[in-house]
């Protein structure tokens, strides 16, 4: 394997296939995502978007296929090892640690995902938690139980928790689903501001105007295969993408 040079992609997925019994959920997917890119992942329901995310974050084992992150083959690694190397994600249906407060959710990330020695004192840890929460607009909710959060607050909490792991790559799995249009803009602005801070972001989304506004590059999956990849306009104009989405 070649060492990671400046032009090497942050994430390289090679010939990745995932089957559930006889059902092929992902069929020979190969894609490279360069450092700092805002990458949109679209496709109709059941096209394999979340399965691909599970394979990148390590929740699913790939068979066959490789996932190379920052020049290192991470295919055999468990999810927590991948998180420590810099891959963070949110979930399609929010999965907060529901017995904890918002701040405690983030402290889990600080305790386990960051390198020992990053934080020397308890005060430094709380500062770090509070600065992330402030950025996410959740500072007033720090000591509130996650069971009392609204939908948009839960989405932001998940992004905040992902951010607390200090990711190089952040995967947002439909963080805007079910939100009002003003809330969609709010979350989108947050993601754009994170992308401005050297975090590579993969965004899965059904809301097209959000995808168009956010992405520098878009990939469309259908039935486990890549049917289009490239600039957002080109992908949207692609007849196969329109067919997959509109069924015409």
């Amino acid at each position, binding site marked *: 394997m070649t060492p990671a040079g400046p032009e090497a992609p942050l994430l390289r997925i090679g010939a990745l296939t995932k089957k559930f019994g006889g059902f092929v959920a992902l069929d020979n997917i190969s894609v490279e995502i360069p450092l700092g890119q805002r990458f949109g992942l679209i496709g109709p329901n059941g096209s394999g978007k979340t399965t691909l995310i599970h394979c990148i*974050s*390590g*929740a699913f084992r790939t068979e066959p296929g490789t996932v190379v992150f920052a020049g290192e083959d991470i295919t055999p690694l*468990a*999810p*927590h090892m991948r*998180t*420590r190397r810099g891959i*963070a*994600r949110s*979930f399609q249906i929010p*999965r*907060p*640690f*529901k*017995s*904890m407060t918002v701040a*405690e959710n983030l*402290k*889990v*990330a600080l*305790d*386990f*995902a*960051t390198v020992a020695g990053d934080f020397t004192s308890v005060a430094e840890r709380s500062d770090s938690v509070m600065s992330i929460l402030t950025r996410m607009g959740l500072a007033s909710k720090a000591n509130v139980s996650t069971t009392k959060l609204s939908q948009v607050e839960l989405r932001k909490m998940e992004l905040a*928790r*992902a951010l607390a*792991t200090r990711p190089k790559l952040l995967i947002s799995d439909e963080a805007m689903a079910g939100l009002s249009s003003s809330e969609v803009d709010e979350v989108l602005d947050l993601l754009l501001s994170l992308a401005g801070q050297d975090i590579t972001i993969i965004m899965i989304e059904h809301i097209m105007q959000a995808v168009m506004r956010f992405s520098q590059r878009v990939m469309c999956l259908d039935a486990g295969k890549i049917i289009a990849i490239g600039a957002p306009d080109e992908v949207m104009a692609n007849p196969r993408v329109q067919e997959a989405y509109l069924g015409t």
Partner: protein
Amino acid sequence: MNRSSLPFWIGVSVFLLAAALMTQLISNEYPFFAIYGILQFVVLAVAWSILGGYAGYVNFGTSAFFGVGVYTAVFLSKALGAPLAAQIAAAAIVGAFLGFAVGLITLRMQGIFFSIATIALTIIIETTVTNWRFVGGAAGVQLQRPPVLPLFNSYVAMLFFVQAMLVVVAIAVARYIQISWIGRGLQALKDDELAAECTGVPTLRLKVMACVISGALMCAAGAPAAMYLQYADPSSAFNLNYSVSVLAMSLIGGTSHWSGPVIGAVLLGTTQQLLTVTISSEVNVLVLGVMLVLFVVAAPEGIIGLIRRARGARAGGEA
């Protein structure tokens, strides 16, 4: 030591001092005999809740670990005439290894499948011991107590004090786990295992660690039981009653705080003792069952949950 730990250590010292004083002032053996049983349940319940409470992995194998502790002591005293302290230390080590093996094999299973596997473990180990002639097989084995240390009036009083020290060790360990990063990790994986992994928590390693610590404490708690009864047989050492009682004590006390299983074990252990003496030993099983049902329905977070709710309501009322 930080400030919040001070009341805990003062409490622990007072408890040990009171136990030591009791052994000097009371000459009747019965109180020691009765309280020993309760203390033993405190250690078992606190140990159980490290895996069953903090991590949410319900272990029905308490009796397996307890029985292995009993038989480690039996084996060492028969084969080598080892002293009590060596029996307990050895039982803790054996328990840690057993916890490690069980953890590696079974903790990949989630939820109810893990629980079923732990029941199977109890049966396998009990069958093995039943067929092991050296430690008495199915008929059990009689044991001769060695002379008691000169500090104590009777052997039972000494065992009582030893079990009191084990209580202190168990709650100190459980408390440390609860307030440290280990506790936070276990709580996270209890809430959501995949989310915990994706937040960097090494879930399998933490679960195995909890199983090792819990197993070591349970085996250590079982070791003095051989000398306490001067007799051991597989069907009572591996009695499923231990598993059920300990689970009920932890759940009734509440598992989100180390003091929950202590409260549960003291409450139920005392009730059981009273019922056994006054009515019959069969009734206490009935009472245990009824209390468990009541708590699961009315207070799923146990007594600790009730206390927290009452405090929350009071704080809310003042605000």
